């Protein structure tokens, strides 16, 4: 197949996307009592001056605890849960810049070489002042062994890998992880192209 048509260019979501592209509750992917390891992921999105971005749109996409994506291409014989889409959205708090998702730890998903990837959640960040989305992945600090073998993490220069690893803050139920997204500077988050 060769490309016949040109891609429609990306534009910013602007300051008013919460009119439609976020509804309260979109950040909660699972209710209390959901089977599987419930987790909280929280953090901020910071600009090149390390000021919080007060109007970032964050979207996550993940497999369920069995490792299956709710998508027609994922035909593996693994359980799907009618209540779990694997998609969540939130917006950073206008005053504090904090965002928060409540979800479950995703199960194993195969990589391109037939092994399993470390548990991870895909994250897309957009906002006013961003003309394109940035794509990254959230890994987990308490999956050290799996992280070491992960093909995607191994593509990332070693000194920058930590920017993709959410830090476990609180080992209670639900576990709370911290994941900040940083633009610019030495500790800039690794953004992915695929």
């Amino acid at each position, binding site marked *: *197949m*060769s*490309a*016949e*048509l*040109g*891609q429609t*260019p990306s*534009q*910013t979501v*602007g*300051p*008013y*996307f919460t*009119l*439609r*592209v976020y509804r309260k509750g979109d950040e909660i992917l699972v209710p209390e009592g959901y089977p599987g390891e419930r987790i909280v992921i929280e953090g901020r999105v910071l*600009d*090149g001056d390390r*000021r919080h*971005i007060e109007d970032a749109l964050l*979207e996550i*996409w993940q*497999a369920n605890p069995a490792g299956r*994506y*709710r*998508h*027609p*291409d994922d*035909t*593996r014989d693994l359980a799907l849960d009618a209540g779990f*889409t*694997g998609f969540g959205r939130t917006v950073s708090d206008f005053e504090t810049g904090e965002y928060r998702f409540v979800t479950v730890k995703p199960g194993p*998903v*195969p990589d*391109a070489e*037939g*092994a*399993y*990837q470390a548990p*991870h959640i*895909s994250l897309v960040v*957009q906002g006013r*002042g*961003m*003309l*394109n989305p*940035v*794509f990254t*992945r959230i890994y987990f600090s308490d999956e050290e062994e799996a992280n070491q073998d992960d093909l*995607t993490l191994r*593509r990332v220069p070693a000194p*920058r890998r930590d920017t993709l690893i959410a830090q476990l803050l609180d080992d209670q139920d639900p576990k709370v992880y911290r994941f900040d997204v940083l*633009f*610019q*500077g030495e500790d800039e988050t*690794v*953004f992915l*192209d*695929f």
Partner: protein
Amino acid sequence: MSEPLIRHYGPRAYADHPPFSYPDYRSTVKRSPTHDLVEIVQTLSETTGPGQAWAEISEEDSDLTTNTGTGSPAIGERIIVTGRVLDENGQGLPGTVLEIWQANASGRYAHWRETEFPAPLDPNFVGVGQCLTDSDGGYRFTTIKPGPYPWGNHPNAWRPSHIHFSILGPSLGARLVTQMYFPGDPLIPLDPIFNSAPPHAGGRMIATYDHEVTEENWALGYRWDIVLRGELATPTHGGAD
């Protein structure tokens, strides 16, 4: 079947998209990466995406002139915006979730952050809509033509009339948020957000007036197609044992 379908998508064509930092649009300067992106190999995490799952639970709501539910129609120039969502290979993409938001006929957004522009709100227009593409990738909205509005980027800055589109297509990699503009708008050449797209690609964001779409004694018609990343090669089956 136990092995998943692995698709092979072509690249996000960065040469067809705006740069991350575009100083004429001031707030991009500090909100853009400075390191190169790290290229990774696509896995199911990238070749699947939320469009299909979200489509199952989405409510169709494609008439913005009546969807406030007040029983009175919105004020302004009623328009129909229709077209197809396609991939680069020309395939229509069914089941794609389109969400739109826009200003009203006066250029005013019904958003709490809009406090500067003294233009009236319309109690019968919120300016949000949603629809799913049909089996051919087609979509259709009825709405009000949005007005231009001022913004603080530079002195006497005005955004051309536009409708924001969020598209959840077949894969995460195809995620797109863009804006649709109207033909002949004199503000387009003055707009840094429009101009951030490379000159060869900017025209893809401008709708075409289509008299075939226009409905007699009812609404003017515009046609606009949206093109997402397409597959490079035939999908394969694969995965971990």
